[in-house]
């Protein structure tokens, strides 16, 4: 059903697939959210997922990190099928995957420092306090917020929280980052800063990313490839330019 808009991007040529999703289906009660969805994401690629709100974009990436269990289908992340592994194996996989929540999900009872220390202490046994401090500072420097290290989340703005949430992800140097609407609810200037950060992180750590967005500026800037999710599966795939030039009614909606 996937409708490749043009042949302008050759997907398979010499590149390693990092995430392979096969026939993924998920329904809540009688409500079918994902229906036989197939998607492959390649190494160091930024894939943007476009789709109306409520169409199952968040459900899709939550399946990839194992927060939601699909009814059918397989999800291979760096070769491991995460739909059939045990809890402790899943925890190991998760250190390779960063997830930026739409609501940031910063622990509001902890300082910025404690927020960043949390995943480190949990995943690296035997790490020394010196190493922790160094990594925390490095991660905060990457997002330009070293001065907030001892502040509480309630003292920070929405854009700053988004960047702290990003810092908390990159502290574990994940190979894959899943962004759930990283720029929604931010003003255009702050949104542009977040988009730049996404690009910088990709360059610096060679990450593979899936980015959910409705914001066409964000799509234009960050996407190597755009996927349109419709009725629970991939309706179309292509570059931003392909989408812009498309006459498909379902695609044109997003450019109004």
């Amino acid at each position, binding site marked *: 059903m996937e409708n490749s808009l043009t042949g302008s991007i050759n997907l398979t040529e010499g590149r390693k697939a990092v995430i392979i999703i096969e026939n993924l289906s998920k329904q809540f009660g009688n409500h079918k959210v994902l229906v036989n969805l197939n998607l492959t994401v390649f190494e160091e690629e930024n894939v943007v997922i476009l789709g109306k709100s409520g169409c199952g974009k968040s459900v899709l990436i*939550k399946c990839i990190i194992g*927060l939601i269990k699909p009814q059918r289908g397989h999800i291979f992340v760096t070769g491991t099928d995460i739909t059939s592994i045990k809890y402790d194996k899943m*925890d190991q996989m998760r250190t390779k995957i960063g*997830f930026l*929540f739409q609501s940031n*999900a910063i622990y*509001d*009872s902890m300082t910025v420092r404690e927020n960043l220390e*949390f995943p480190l202490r*949990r995943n690296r046994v035997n790490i020394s306090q010196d190493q922790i401090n160094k990594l925390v500072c490095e991660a905060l420097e990457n997002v330009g917020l070293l001065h907030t290290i001892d502040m509480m989340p309630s003292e920070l703005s929405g854009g700053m929280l988004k960047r702290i949430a990003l810092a908390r992800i990159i502290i574990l140097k994940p190979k894959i980052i899943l962004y759930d609407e990283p720029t929604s609810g931010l003003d255009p200037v702050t949104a542009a800063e977040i988009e730049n950060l996404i690009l910088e992180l990709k360059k610096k750590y060679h990450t593979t990313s899936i980015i959910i967005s409705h914001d066409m500026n964000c799509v234009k800037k960050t996407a190597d490839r755009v996927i349109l999710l419709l009725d629970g599966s991939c309706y179309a795939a292509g570059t931003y330019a392909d989408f812009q030039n498309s006459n498909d009614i379902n695609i044109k909606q997003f450019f109004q």
Partner: protein
Amino acid sequence: MKLTMTVLQFLEDTGNLSRFTARYFAIGFRKPFETRELFRQCYNIGYKSFTLVSLTSLIIGLVLTMQLRPSLVKYGVESRLPIMVGIAIIREIGPVVAALIFAGKIASSIGAELGSMKVTEQIDAMEVSGTNPFKYLVATRVLACTIMLPILIVMADAIALVGAFIGINIQGVTSLRLFFSEIFNSLELTDILPSYIKTYFFGFVIGIVGAYKGYNAVKGTRGVGNAANSAVVLASVLIFIIDLLAVQITEILGLN
């Protein structure tokens, strides 16, 4: 119609709560233990409720004494006042009043805290950073309540007895030593033990209900408020039900 709905809802709630409780026993005590978080919660919970529990216990002791005196004077058994008050406080009033206050303070705060963590995806964030949120958040809080409430209630009983002593001294005089030796000489193990044992159940129920309501909070501004509110209501009702069961059981076992 409305009544059947309420009854059905209550039954469903009870079923889900039982499942939640089963989950607590199934994974709450698995290694590794979250010892640090447990101590932090014990301190928090004890510290938060100590002043309120003390104050209410002092007043209850005082008021109870003043209310009982006229009746005892009428029957000419005023000298039995310390024993009457002592038994009332240790067997029933002390534990139940402290537990209700504790429920109001702690079940609501656990419900609100976990509820807001749930709706802002902080619980999911914990899960993806390699931490079992049920163990880290729920198990530690429930255990902390189970440990702390009995300790608080022993203190509350003592403070209520001091209140009673003050009540006695408002009219007529007795020395503190005489007052306490009179009470303790007439107390038996069967007065103390059953009521002490039931405080563990009170503590457990307050913790598990608060955590259950918070953990299942629904999105939206009212979700968190409802979680806190219904946690207090359900916990308070369950405290009375446990109290009723406890008195039946001690009766059957002949411990009265």
